[in-house]
Each structure stands twice: as structure tokens, then as C-alpha cells.
């Protein structure tokens, strides 16, 4: 009991040490101190060792005890990956750094057009795949405690104390992760404290395992040669290599090394410098080799010394204990503890980042509706959601541990977990190497692979009859023969693990590729795809040209198209001369290409020029910056063309206005022609009579006096007509030009009408009866009475001339229309034909044309006068005869009261 308590005390002290180390590192990192250590390749390499978890620490020996050297495959895969860092890891790290990737879910979602759906799927899959692994670590720690206790005095009860220990360990781990994993929100998600702690633990577990190994080899077996003899003698010496299992497991561990969220975290997210990979490429395999060096000796000696039935998974612990070496056992325990805790911490950190970034925060922001921009405390919300995610994930691991009861062998759980996360491999590698990969393809591939993994690996792992019925194992899912979980498509006889890995990854990759081929990526997806696949071209600083396949002739043709043949030839010739070459095709040196690009840029814009030369030279694909610059130029061009459009709209508006003006001028010109023509006619007609009769009187001899008198009278009448016409024309001209000065007087409407009727009757021979209502005419006027009288006379005369009634009657009616006064002149004639009403007020329009005496100016003059007086004269419909209305505005007509 004392020993167990001491162990717990040591444990606590160790944890306290870790806290201190992490705290100091974190502070140093914040102050920018100790950069040599925090950012050293050694720490990076050591942090990679979280690959070696409790499973590796304890389980590798168990694995070796059960399956011989096969455990090596678990180390072989990662070694291959890191030795071949140039191809995959370097690319991943570069992408991770240049795109500020925070997790593997972020990487995949970001590659496929920042699809959150994909991120959620990956996150959920990662949680499902990794939770058993976390449970595994809890189990390894509690089991190792149990073994200690059993060796001590057996009071450690497996059922109660173990679960209590598991609980407290989970709480401790959660506390550590929360403290150092979510201290601050870093843009690049680096956690110096955690990384340093992990590095320290890596050293501890290496030393612990080496110490146990050394003790076993030299302390128990008595030297290397003795140990080798024992190994030869044991069953492990006669191991056989199952080719497919080796290949499968190596591949699986390599895939897991790349895809495990915690590995991605330390390898990509926490990476400070790409060059660390170079050192890690030999240092990490070395570390793995040291870790695996004593696995077989420990397994063999353990099998030899310990009683049959002891769990080989804990030989590392039970061997020193059985030899009474409690100190060594404690160290060994600390090694296992380190392995387990570092794994849990980093895995939880990685998972919580994913869960928080891709599940919790989107939901939170969606519920908030306002978006992150609206409040300043989103930072705290993110931290809180991280912390809750950490608690949730560790809690989940604990629940799984409690539920599974720690029954399965450690290695089996590890492999299941590996195979689960390995499903990310096609989408990830396809995403960084193949531009054709699409979001839908990735989703389908992940879905297919993951379902197969669940069906062929996860569910069967609980054993026949637990989740999947025995019947399903034997006859297939729903009785379909080719859906047997361990013999898909009716192909039995494959090792279950290899079977599951093979089918799930094969179908995953196949469906990913096929769906990618038939679906079409979004623009954003394509842009991201190009950036990911061509990450090295894009993140390079210089934009120089690599002239490997540049074709001078092609460049010439293109340049001719842009600059014109002459210009292009001159340019090329000049370059060729400068290079000392004859002819006009210069060597496409980088210098020349850059000059050419500048020349072209002057015509088509820099980005387009770069892109065009890039297409011909082929040295680089078009970068995102290029595309953005092209977009900018296009936007400018668009703006320019919209300006042009506006200009041309203005122009066409101006043209329309000009056309209207022109139409108006043409119309006016026609009117002028018609007017002149009319004037000519009106003047020439009376002159014709005058001339003809004067010539008759002059040339004809023997005219009678009666005839002479008659002809002289005609001449007289026509001369008067001519005079009147000229008077009217002048009058109209004056009125139209607005030159008339109004002689405003006051007077009675009745007086004005009296005078007008008298004048009209005196000048016109034809009689007309005039009917008036004297009472209503009692209106005081204040206007140019002479002009108004002229209008009245004209209207009365018209009635006299044109009223064709047998007994002509003219009614003059005065009425009040609102504030205006209307004077109506209505005769009992036949009215004016409808067609003539529009034009009757125009000059030279004669309605009653039979007479032929009038020039057709009277009404035009009336209208002009009334306009000048601020009133109006209109034709009056529906009077039964011909009616005109003269309208006087109020200001000029005051009822005399």
C-alpha cells in the first residue's frame, strides 16, 4: 500500500514537473525567450514521438509476445513516411503554414473550397476514430496501476479503484490540456508549453523503456548473447512473415502517421520551420528504433519468467516488479504514464480544436445570427468552446473506457483507431496532389470508407453477437452473402484487419476518384485546389521565369498579336542583337522575358502579360495573385467600358435631341415655305385683278363709262383688300414677336360690345340680328380695350360673313366661369366642320372658303391678342351653330358690384 501511495506521489510530482515545464516554456515563448530550445528541431522530433503512446510503450511488447516481429510494422510505416518527407510531409507542412491550417479537418475543408460540411464530417469521424484510443490510454494507465497494486498487496480492486483512478487521471489530463492548450488563441495554434511537455515526456518514456530493456538484457538475461539465445529458443524465434499483413500494417501505420489528428497537430500545426523535417527525417526513425530495440527481449524474457496467463501487454511493468525492482518499475510506470498522457493531451487538443472550430462555433454563430463581427468577446467564446470540447472529448474517452471495460488487447484497439483515421488519406493526399479532386468526391470517399470501416472493423471488434449478430458474421448483413463484415464480396480467407483496411481504403479512394472525375468543382474549390497542389510555386517569393521550354517563336507570334507585327519584330531584333545573335529570334533568357513582360504589360496590363507569358513559357501556372490581378484589371476594364457605355448613352441622347431639333427646324422650314407661299398667293391675287383691269382700261378703246366705273371699282376694292392684308400681316407679326405694348384701360364690357357691334355692322354689308343680355354685360374690365374690341369685331364680322342661315342671328352671352368671365358669340349657322376646328386658328386657314375674300388671318390675330391679354379664344362645341368663346381672366374682369 505504501508502495502504491509512493507511486501516486511520484506520479503527482511528475505531473507537477510537467506543469512547471509547460508553464515556463509558455512564458518564455510569450516573451520570445529560449527560442533556440522552443524552436529547435530536437524538440520537434521529440514531439513527434507522441506517435508512441501507451499502446506502443506497453502494447508493443504484448504485440511481440503474441505475433512476433509484426510489431515492427507499426514503426516501419511512420519511418518510411518521415524518411520520404520530401514528397508528402514537406508539402503538408508548407500548406499548413501558408494557409494557417489548424487541424486535419481544417486542411481538408480548406482544400475543398472551405466546405464546413466536410470539416464536420472529418471532425466527427476523427472523434469516433480517436475516442477509443483515448480510452485505451486511460485503460493502460489504470491497468498499470492495478498491476502495481496487485504486486503490492492486492488491495487495489479492479472494479472500483481502477475506475476511480481512471476518473482522476481523466480529470488531471483535462485540466492540463485546458490549462496549456487553451491559454490563448494563437493565430497559428502553436502551444509551446504543450510541445515542451510532450518532448519531456518523450525523453522520459524513451529512458524508461531503455532502462527496462537494459535491465532485462543485462540484469536478467545476462548479456546480449544470452538474450539472443533465449530469443532463438523461444517461440518468437520462429516467426513467420505474413506478407499481406506486413504490407497492410505498414501501410496502415504510415497512413495513420499522416492522418492522426494528434500527429497532424505536432507535425504540421506546431511546426516552426520546414527544415526541422530534414533533421526529423533521420532523428525520428532513430527514436523509433531505440523504442523498439528492447521490445523482443522484454517479450521473450517476460514469457519465460512470468507465470502463464499474465498479460504480456504489461511485461514492461511486471518484469521489474517480479524482480523486486520497484524503482525501475516506477520509472517504467512513469514512461507508460508519459506515453499515455502526452497522447491524450495532444489528441484532445487537436480534436477540441476541430470540434470547437467546425462544430461548436458555427452553431454558436448561427444561433447568434449576428456573426462574429458584432461582439468583441467572441475570443472568450472560442476559448470556452475549446475548453468544453476538451472536457467533452476526454469525458467521451472515459465513458468509452468505462463501457468497454478494458477487455480488448491494446494493439487491437490501436489498429482499429488507425484504420479509422486512415480514411482521411485519399481525400488529403488527393487534395494536395490532384487538382481534379472535388468536395463531393471527398465527401463520398470519406463516407464510403468510414462506413466500411465501421462495418468491417469497428462493429466486429466488439465480438460476434454484441453489435453485429452471429448471423451477420456468417451470412452477411441482412442475409446478403457478399456483405459479410469479414469477407466482403464473398472473398473469405483474408486477415480481418488487412481485409478491413484493404476494402475500406480501396473503395474510399475509388469512389473519391470517380466522383471527383464526374463532379465539377466550385470556383473557390478550384482556386484552393490550385494553391494546395502548386503550393511550392505559390509560396516562392520571386516571380522570375524558368526558361526551360520557352519558345521564342510562340512568344513572337503572341507579341505580334498584341504590339503589332512591326513593333514586335523591332523589339525581338533589338533583343537578338543585344544577345549577339543574328536574325530576329533572341534566346528566351529570363532577362528578355521580363523585359518582354513589361512591354506587354503596357498594352494588356501586368497580370495578363504575366499570365500570357506564363502560358507559353510553361514555367509556372497562374498564381492566385495573378488571378486576382487579372480580376482587378478586368474590373478596371469593366468600369472603363461602363463609362464608355454611359458616354455613348449620352451621345445617343444628344443625337436624339439634335434629331428632334432638326425635325423641328425642318417643320419650321416647311411652315415658313407654306407661309411664304400663302403670303405670295394672298398678295398676288388682288394684284392680278388690279393689273389686269388697269391694263384693260389702258389698252382697250371705246370702253363704256359704266364699264370703266365698274373696273375702277374692282381695282379700288382689291387695293383695299391688299392694304388690309398688309395691315393684318403687320399686326400679326407685331403680336407674334411680343413687341406689342398693351394700352390698359378700364371700361364696361357692355360699352365695348356696343362699339364692336356698331363697327362690324358698318363695315360689312350682310345683315345679322344681334341678341344681347344687357344685365349680364355689367362687367367692369381692366385691360387693353382696343385690342379686346378688335377681337369682338372680328368674331361679329365672321358671323356676318359666314353665317349661312336664312335669317342670321348672333347671340352674345356673358357668363361667370369661376373667377373668369366668358363672352360667347353664337350664331345660328352650320358650325365649323370637325376637321377644320384644329386649324381654324392657324394663319391662312380659311373655313368658309367660298367667299375667298379673307386671307385667313382674322382668327389667328384674335388668338394672338387673347394670348397677350392673358385670356383665350376657343371654338365652342354643341351650340347648334358656330360658336366662339372669349375667356377673360379675373384680373381683367371685375364684376361691377
Amino acid at each position: 500500500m505504501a508502495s502504491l501511495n509512493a507511486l501516486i506521489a511520484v506520479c503527482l510530482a511528475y505531473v507537477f514537473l510537467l506543469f512547471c515545464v509547460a508553464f515556463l516554456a509558455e512564458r518564455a515563448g510569450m516573451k520570445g525567450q529560449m527560442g533556440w530550445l522552443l524552436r529547435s528541431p530536437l524538440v520537434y522530433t521529440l514531439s513527434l514521438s507522441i506517435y508512441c503512446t501507451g499502446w506502443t510503450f506497453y502494447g508493443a511488447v504484448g504485440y511481440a509476445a503474441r505475433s512476433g516481429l509484426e510489431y515492427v510494422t507499426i514503426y516501419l510505416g511512420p519511418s518510411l513516411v518521415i524518411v520520404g518527407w520530401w514528397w508528402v510531409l514537406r508539402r503538408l507542412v508548407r500548406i499548413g503554414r501558408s494557409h494557417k491550417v489548424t487541424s486535419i479537418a481544417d486542411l481538408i475543408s480548406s482544400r475543398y473550397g472551405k466546405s464546413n460540411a466536410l470539416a464536420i464530417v472529418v471532425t466527427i469521424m476523427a472523434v469516433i476514430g480517436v475516442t477509443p484510443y483515448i480510452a485505451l490510454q486511460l485503460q493502460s494507465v489504470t491497468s498499470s496501476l492495478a498491476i502495481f497494486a496487485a504486486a503490492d498487496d492486492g488491495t487495489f480492486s479492479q472494479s472500483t479503484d481502477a475506475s476511480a483512478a481512471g476518473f482522476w487521471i481523466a480529470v488531471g489530463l483535462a485540466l492540463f490540456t485546458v490549462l496549456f492548450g487553451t491559454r490563448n488563441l494563437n493565430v497559428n495554434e502553436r502551444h509551446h508549453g504543450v510541445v515542451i511537455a510532450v518532448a519531456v515526456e518523450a525523453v522520459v518514456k524513451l529512458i524508461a523503456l531503455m532502462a527496462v530493456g537494459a535491465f532485462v538484457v543485462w540484469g536478467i538475461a545476462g548479456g546480449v548473447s544470452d538474450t539472443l539465445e533465449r530469443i532463438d529458443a523461444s517461440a518468437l524465434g520462429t516467426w513467420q512473415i505474413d506478407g499481406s499483413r506486413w504490407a497492410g500494417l505498414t501501410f496502415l501505420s504510415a497512413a495513420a502517421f499522416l492522418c492522426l489528428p494528434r500527429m497532424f497537430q505536432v507535425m504540421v500545426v506546431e511546426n516552426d520551420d520546414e527544415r526541422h523535417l530534414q533533421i526529423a527525417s533521420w532523428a525520428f526513425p532513430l527514436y523509433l528504433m531505440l523504442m523498439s530495440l528492447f521490445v523482443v527481449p522484454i517479450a521473450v524474457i517476460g514469457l519465460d519468467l512470468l507465470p502463464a496467463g499474465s498479460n504480456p501487454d504489461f511485461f514492461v511493468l511486471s518484469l521489474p516488479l517480479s524482480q523486486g525492482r520497484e524503482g525501475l518499475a516506477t520509472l517504467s510506470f512513469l514512461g507508460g504514464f508519459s506515453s499515455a498522457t502526452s497522447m491524450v493531451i495532444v489528441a484532445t487538443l487537436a480534436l477540441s480544436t476541430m470540434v470547437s472550430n467546425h462544430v461548436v462555433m458555427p452553431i454558436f454563430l448561427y444561433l447568434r445570427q449576428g456573426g462574429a463581427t458584432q461582439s468583441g468577446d467572441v475570443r472568450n467564446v472560442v476559448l470556452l468552446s475549446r475548453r468544453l470540447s476538451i472536457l467533452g472529448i476526454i469525458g467521451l474517452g472515459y465513458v468509452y473506457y468505462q463501457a468497454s471495460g478494458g477487455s480488448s488487447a491494446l494493439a487491437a484497439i490501436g489498429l482499429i483507431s488507425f484504420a479509422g483515421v486512415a480514411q482521411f488519406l485519399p481525400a488529403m493526399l488527393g487534395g494536395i496532389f490532384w487538382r481534379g479532386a472535388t468536395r463531393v468526391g471527398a465527401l463520398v470517399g470519406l463516407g464510403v470508407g468510414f462506413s466500411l470501416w465501421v462495418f468491417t472493423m469497428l462493429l466486429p471488434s466488439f465480438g460476434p453477437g454484441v453489435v453485429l449478430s452471429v448471423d451477420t458474421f456468417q451470412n452477411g448483413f441482412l442475409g446478403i452473402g457478399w456483405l459479410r463484415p469479414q469477407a466482403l464480396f464473398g472473398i473469405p480467407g483474408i486477415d480481418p484487419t488487412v481485409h478491413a483496411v484493404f476494402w475500406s481504403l480501396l473503395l474510399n479512394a475509388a469512389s473519391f476518384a470517380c466522383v471527383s472525375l464526374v463532379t465539377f468543382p466550385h470556383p473557390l474549390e478550384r482556386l484552393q485546389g490550385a494553391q494546395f497542389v502548386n503550393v511550392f510555386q505559390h509560396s516562392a517569393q520571386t516571380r522570375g521565369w524558368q526558361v526551360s521550354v520557352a519558345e521564342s517563336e510562340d512568344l513572337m507570334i503572341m507579341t505580334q498579336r498584341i504590339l503589332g507585327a512591326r513593333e514586335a519584330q523591332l523589339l525581338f531584333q533589338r533583343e537578338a542583337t543585344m544577345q549577339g545573335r543574328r536574325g530576329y529570334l533572341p534566346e528566351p533568357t529570363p532577362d528578355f522575358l521580363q523585359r518582354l513582360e513589361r512591354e506587354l504589360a503596357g498594352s494588356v496590363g501586368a497580370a495578363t502579360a504575366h499570365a500570357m507569358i506564363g502560358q507559353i513559357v510553361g514555367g509556372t501556372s497562374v498564381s492566385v495573385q495573378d488571378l486576382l490581378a487579372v480580376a482587378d484589371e478586368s474590373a478596371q476594364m469593366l468600369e472603363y467600358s461602363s463609362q464608355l457605355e454611359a458616354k455613348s448613352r449620352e451621345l445617343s441622347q444628344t443625337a436624339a435631341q439634335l434629331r428632334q431639333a432638326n425635325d423641328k427646324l425642318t417643320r419650321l422650314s416647311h411652315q415658313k415655305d407654306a407661309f411664304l407661299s400663302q403670303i405670295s398667293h394672298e398678295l398676288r391675287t388682288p394684284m392680278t385683278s388690279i393689273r389686269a383691269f388697269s391694263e384693260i382700261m389702258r389698252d382697250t378703246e371705246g370702253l363704256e363709262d359704266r364699264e370703266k366705273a365698274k373696273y375702277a371699282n374692282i381695282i379700288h376694292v382689291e387695293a383695299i383688300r391688299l392694304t388690309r392684308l398688309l395691315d393684318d400681316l403687320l399686326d400679326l407679326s407685331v403680336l407674334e414677336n411680343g413687341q406689342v405694348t398693351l394700352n390698359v384701360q378700364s371700361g364696361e364690357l357692355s360699352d365695348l360690345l356696343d362699339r364692336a357691334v356698331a363697327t362690324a355692322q358698318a363695315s360689312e354689308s350682310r345683315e345679322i340680328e344681334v341678341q344681347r343680355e344687357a344685365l349680364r354685360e355689367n362687367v367692369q374690365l381692366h385691360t387693353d380695350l382696343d385690342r379686346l374690341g378688335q377681337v369682338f369685331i372680328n368674331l361679329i364680322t365672321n358671323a356676318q360673313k359666314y353665317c349661312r342661315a336664312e335669317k342670321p342671328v348672333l347671340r352674345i352671352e356673358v357668363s361667370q366661369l369661376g373667377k373668369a368671365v366668358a363672352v360667347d358669340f353664337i350664331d345660328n349657322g352650320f358650325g365649323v366642320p370637325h376637321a377644320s376646328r384644329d386649324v381654324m386658328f392657324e394663319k391662312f386657314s380659311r373655313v368658309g372658303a367660298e367667299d375667298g375674300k379673307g386671307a385667313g388671318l382674322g382668327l389667328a390675330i384674335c388668338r394672338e391678342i387673347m394670348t397677350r391679354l392673358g385670356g383665350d379664344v376657343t371654338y365652342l362645341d354643341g351650340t347648334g351653330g358656330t360658336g366662339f368663346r372669349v375667356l377673360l381672366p379675373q384680373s381683367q374682369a371685375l364684376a361691377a358690384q
Partner: protein
Amino acid sequence: MGKHVLLVEDELNIIEAIRFLLSREGWEVDTHSNGTDAAQVIRERKPDLVVLDVMLPGKSGFDILEELRSHEQTADLPVLMLTARGQSRDREMAEKAGVSRFMTKPFSNTEVLTAVRDLLYVHGQRT
């Protein structure tokens, strides 16, 4: 043959003057004052010569002339056209319509008489 002239004119005083002039020359002067039915009246009365005003109530002299020319009976009829508008375009229109002689008002009496004589002579030569 009798010399029968139809004067299509709406100004009473001008009718009076031309009637005086031509009747003294021995013409039988017939008059009509409306444009609308002028062509029909001309065909009915079958004059040897038509003196035609341009500005007539109802129908212009140009239209009447075209109608005359398109009709077989009056296609060759000598037509003296008188107009008070006196613009060169009117002369062109008249010539296009097939006028025999075109004069602007005010005219000199002798000119009218000469024109009438000429027209009759030329017509006589042709037929």
C-alpha cells in the same frame, strides 16, 4: 371651228378680267369655280382650251391636271395654268403633271392672249 375656252378659277374679279380679254378675241368663255368636279366638267363641256388656276377650293390645279392627262379624251388638251404662288417648285410640279403653258399671277394681258393663241395654234398643228 369655234374657240371654246373653259376657265377654272375661283376669284370673281380675275374671272371677270380674263372673260373680258378672251371674249374680245372671239373666244367662247365658259367658267367653273370648284376644283372638286373640275375634271369631270371639262370632259363634259369639251373645251378647246382650259385655263386652270392652281389654288382652287376642293382640289388643287395639279391634281386636276394629272386627272386630265390620265384620261384619254383630255390627254392632249391644251392647258394654261395660272398660279399666284409663283415658286419655281410649282412650275416643276406643273410641268411634271403635263402642263402646256405655265404663268404666274399677276400676268400681263398680252402675255395671256399670246399664250392662248400659241397653244391653240400648236394644238391645231398637231391634230
